[in-house]
């Protein structure tokens, strides 16, 4: 009796999930449909918008000569390395800012200042300081995400329930233990969201990172294609970036459920 009820509930949830998934799929289909109508219907010049077939053809070509996967790999590597550096530094920095007023007062101005600087404008400087090797590209990604991430981490960590910290104090937790055993685990779900957001931004800085002195990568591929009016390659590159983004996002979502299964969620997801 009770079991059948549970199964019914699960069925309901599964059904809702199926409906949601098919809606997401529908959206993609509609866009592709519109794309087909516009191009095969001859409504726009193929210099502006290549047909889906041309783009697929281009993707297959690049797959065959291996350049596609090399570009994807190189770009993913750049984004990941730059972003991981920014996480590694922003995490302790932001946590410290959240609980130490002095430290916060010390670093806040420079962070607030730096986060409004356009990363493109910093390219010449990074070239001057770091030369044209990979580290310059990591640096661009780092600069693009770090300052935002510090503030986000600080915000998330400051949001931890004060009562929980007080409880830990009266249970005998020391300063470091409070970080490790309370503030960090309590902010984990929020941090996962922050990470998910910033890795998205990291991808948006890819083209900037590969603007100068790169000879591979998706951003470079797109920039070079502009010169030859190879719109199909541009679209191929955009689609790949989008797909990688989609996968990354999905990974982070799953990860946040995995690392914090204790969360109470409003939606029955």
């Amino acid at each position, binding site marked *: 009796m009770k079991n059948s009820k549970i199964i019914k509930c699960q069925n309901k949830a599964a059904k809702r999930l199926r409906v949601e998934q098919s809606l997401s799929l529908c959206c993609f289909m509609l866009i592709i449909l519109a794309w087909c109508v516009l191009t095969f219907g001859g409504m726009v010049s193929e210099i502006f918008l290549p047909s889906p077939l041309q783009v697929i053809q281009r993707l297959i070509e690049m797959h065959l000569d291996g350049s596609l996967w090399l570009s994807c790999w190189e770009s993913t590597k750049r984004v990941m390395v730059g972003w991981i550096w920014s996480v590694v530094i922003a995490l302790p920095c932001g946590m410290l800012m959240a609980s130490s007023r002095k430290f916060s007062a010390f670093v806040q101005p420079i962070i607030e200042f730096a986060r409004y600087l356009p990363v493109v404008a910093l390219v010449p400087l990074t070239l001057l300081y770091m030369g044209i090797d990979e580290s310059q590209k990591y640096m661009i990604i780092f600069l693009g995400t770090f300052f935002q991430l510090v503030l986000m981490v600080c915000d998330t960590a400051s949001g931890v*329930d004060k*009562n*929980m910290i*007080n*409880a*830990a*104090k*009266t*249970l*005998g*937790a*020391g300063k470091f*233990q409070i970080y490790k*055993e*309370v503030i960090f*685990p*309590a902010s*984990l779900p929020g941090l996962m969201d922050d990470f998910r957001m910033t890795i998205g931004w990291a991808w948006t800085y890819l083209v900037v990172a590969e603007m100068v002195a790169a000879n591979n990568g998706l951003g470079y591929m797109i920039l070079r294609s502009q010169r030859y009016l190879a719109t199909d390659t541009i679209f191929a590159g955009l689609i790949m970036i989008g797909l990688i983004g989609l996968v990354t996002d999905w990974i982070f979502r799953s990860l946040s459920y995995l690392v*914090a299964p*204790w*969360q*109470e969620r409003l939606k029955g997801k």
Partner: protein
Amino acid sequence: MKLEVKDLTKIYHSQNGDVTAIDHVNLQVEESEFVMIVGPSGCGKTTLINMIGGLDEATSGQVILDGKEIEGPGPDRGMVFQGYSLFPWLTVLKNVEFGMKMRKVPAEERTRKAMEYIKLVGLEGFENALPKQLSGGMKQRVAIARTLANEPEMLLMDEPFGALDAQTRVVMQELLAKISRETRTTILFITHDIDEAVLLGDRIYVMSRRPGTIREVITSSLPAERNHNCFVLPQFLETKKKIMDMLWQESQDAALDR
């Protein structure tokens, strides 16, 4: 004497002027005593207990525990808050073990002890549940077990049962009375519920409205074993009436002030 509060005063400074939350509060708690503080809402009860717990700094005055002035929070004063403030990522067992883990008690011993206290509050079988799977009353039991398992010198409780429904509250009050009898832990308990104050307290401090001062101390004449039957004893009603009159007088004065 276990705890002595001497001339404790707290003034909050805010943009719209200074607020005196409590004003020269004096109180004493004996070893193994169950002391209640009852007062109208906003009279500074939380402020007072937070300062005793070391979570907030006094403007002037002293808090003396076992003859030594306190400095900051510590495991000698276990606190139970109105919100349960459990750690939602830890199971019931891990929550109860938390304090011992912080003090680096060996894993085996702390599990054994934690299980003892989980049993004491009647949560056997739930040790692996997460807080989100528990009801309000059960969460508060965990919070009490978590504090007790740390074996504090004394318990400080700030309206721990305020969020519970009337029935659950009585169950929890009886449980706490039982714990107090069995473990002989010194307890300082804050409430604005007169029934609760009379039912549980060996002695009851009545506070005035803000700025909070101690208005009177009442020694309970109830039998040692406190349970729901006490609610209809003549001594209970008599003490309750006395406190009600005092608090009523307070609200009258407050109305006149305006």
